[in-house]
């Protein structure tokens, strides 16, 4: 394992110290329980947005804390969902009378830990709602399983709901918006290489030099299938097809196309992917009116990409264009 770390025990804390040192104007970092909050939190007359999850997906979630996006983020150990006391402390620190929304990615651990946290917070009289994001079409949805995983749509939901909260909308409205974003978004990813969890020290999975993992999860969970590596264009077809089939995208629908890097894939390749994805969307009669290209929800140093398609409407487009000022996403400020 080759990484720029000191030892696997301290990876998360030291990365937090780095963020704290880098963005003093934007964020404050609290330690055990660990959470990142807006420097100006609690913000008056605003629903507080709290998210969190295992570390190793940077910039998500900590990089999205700031005006127009999250009020707080709770980083767990690498690939391990955070503990209830983190969300409990974070929510208490940033929430006002308008209450708090927990944006939770659909993983058993995340759901259960946020659930316990929400109970603790409610017990103290703070109104809390939770929305579980599950946009990964690589996983068959079914009541018999843990259901779909939450991936790329999380980033979009945090931006859009952040704008709505900044807008002063009430908790129920922000919650419903978050559900709508999740319902209108679909994602799928693939990996060319595995990632290596620092405390494990060896790749999570072995991928032969000529194979790829299609439908991989952001924790290196194996996906739909192993396949021989094919050209970028063929790979993009493989990802777009289930996305387009799963959601009833209609001709002339306006969409946001999000081409995400998994951490080890350079931008030059993401542009090659974007080019083909936009072409396929167009072929399907969709209008790509907004986009996002870059490593926003990563899986440590995994090489690969994920594509997220979000059906837009006037409201969502306006919210997407709203100002945001966070370490990782910035516009209009």
């Amino acid at each position, binding site marked *: 394992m080759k990484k720029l770390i000191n030892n696997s025990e301290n990876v998360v804390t030291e990365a937090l110290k780095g963020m704290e040192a880098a963005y003093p104007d934007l964020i404050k970092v609290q330690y055990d329980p660990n959470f990142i909050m807006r420097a100006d939190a609690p913000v008056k007359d605003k629903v507080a947005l709290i998210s969190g999850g295992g570390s190793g997906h940077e910039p998500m979630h900590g990089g999205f804390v700031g005006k127009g996006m999250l009020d707080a983020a709770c980083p767990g150990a690498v690939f391990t969902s955070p503990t209830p006391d983190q969300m409990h402390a974070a929510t208490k620190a940033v929430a006002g009378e308008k209450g708090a929304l927990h944006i939770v990615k659909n993983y058993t651990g995340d759901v259960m830990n946020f659930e316990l946290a929400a109970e603790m917070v409610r017990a103290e009289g703070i109104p809390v709602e939770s929305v579980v994001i599950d946009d990964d079409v690589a996983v068959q949805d079914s009541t018999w399983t843990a259901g779909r995983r939450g991936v790329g749509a999380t980033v979009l939901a945090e931006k859009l709901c952040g704008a709505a909260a900044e807008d002063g909308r009430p908790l129920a409205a922000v919650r419903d918006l978050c559900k709508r974003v999740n319902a209108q978004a679909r994602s799928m990813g693939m990996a060319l290489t595995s990632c290596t969890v620092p405390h494990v020290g060896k790749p999570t999975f072995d991928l032969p030099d000529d194979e790829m993992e299609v439908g991989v999860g952001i924790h290196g969970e*194996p996906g739909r299938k192993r396949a021989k590596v094919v050209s970028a264009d063929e790979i993009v077809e493989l990802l777009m097809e289930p996305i387009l089939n799963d959601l009833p995208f209609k001709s002339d629908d306006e969409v946001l196309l999000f081409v995400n890097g998994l951490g080890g894939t350079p931008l030059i390749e993401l542009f090659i992917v974007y080019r083909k994805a936009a072409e396929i969307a167009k072929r399907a009669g969709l209008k790509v009116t907004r986009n996002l290209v870059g490593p926003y929800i990563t899986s440590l140093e995994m090489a690969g990409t994920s594509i997220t398609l979000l059906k837009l409407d006037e409201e969502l487009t306006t919210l997407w264009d709203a100002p945001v000022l966070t370490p990782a996403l910035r516009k209009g400020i």
Partner: protein
Amino acid sequence: MSSISSSVIEAWLRRLAQVFTQHKDELTDLDAKIGDADHGVNMARGFTAIPPKLDALVDKSVGSLFRTSAMTLISQVGGASGPLYGTFFLQAARPANGKSELTLKELCQCFDSGLTGVVNLGKAALGDKTMVDALTPALAALHPKNGDSLEAALARAATAAHEAAEATIPLIARKGRASYLGERSIGHKDPGAASSALLILALAETVTPPA
């Protein structure tokens, strides 16, 4: 032995810190196959945090020992196993409130209540390839049969848990991260079932140290 004292329970809880440190890599490797390669690390992080908490404890009744362990696991582990094992001990604590020792029957009540908590939280059914698959038969085996000794019952439970964990290998996971794999989860032992088996075995070995 007809009943188990709170000091033996404490010894067990302390023993678990070593057990999950020893089996850290083994459990993590299992999780790497069908999960995200952290179960061993999660268990070790959680259970090594318990002894210091017990040192500080004044009320050493079984209920208090279980509740303290529960809160430690919930606040230290994260992931799926944290809330689940945390809930197991939290619910196990109820029937043991203030008790300084437990009869086998009472011990069964505690663990059954713990398992019920796990099932309510995780919604896993038997055969879903989770820790529930190991805990259920283990606790069934723990129940006193024609008045045999606590040692015998625990040995029986440990064996049942071990066999049940092995029996998760051919199953398709229907809960947790492994469920994303569908068919591809077949052929691998469930990490949580394995850790549950170790948990029960550790109690049996605390009561009857291995020769």
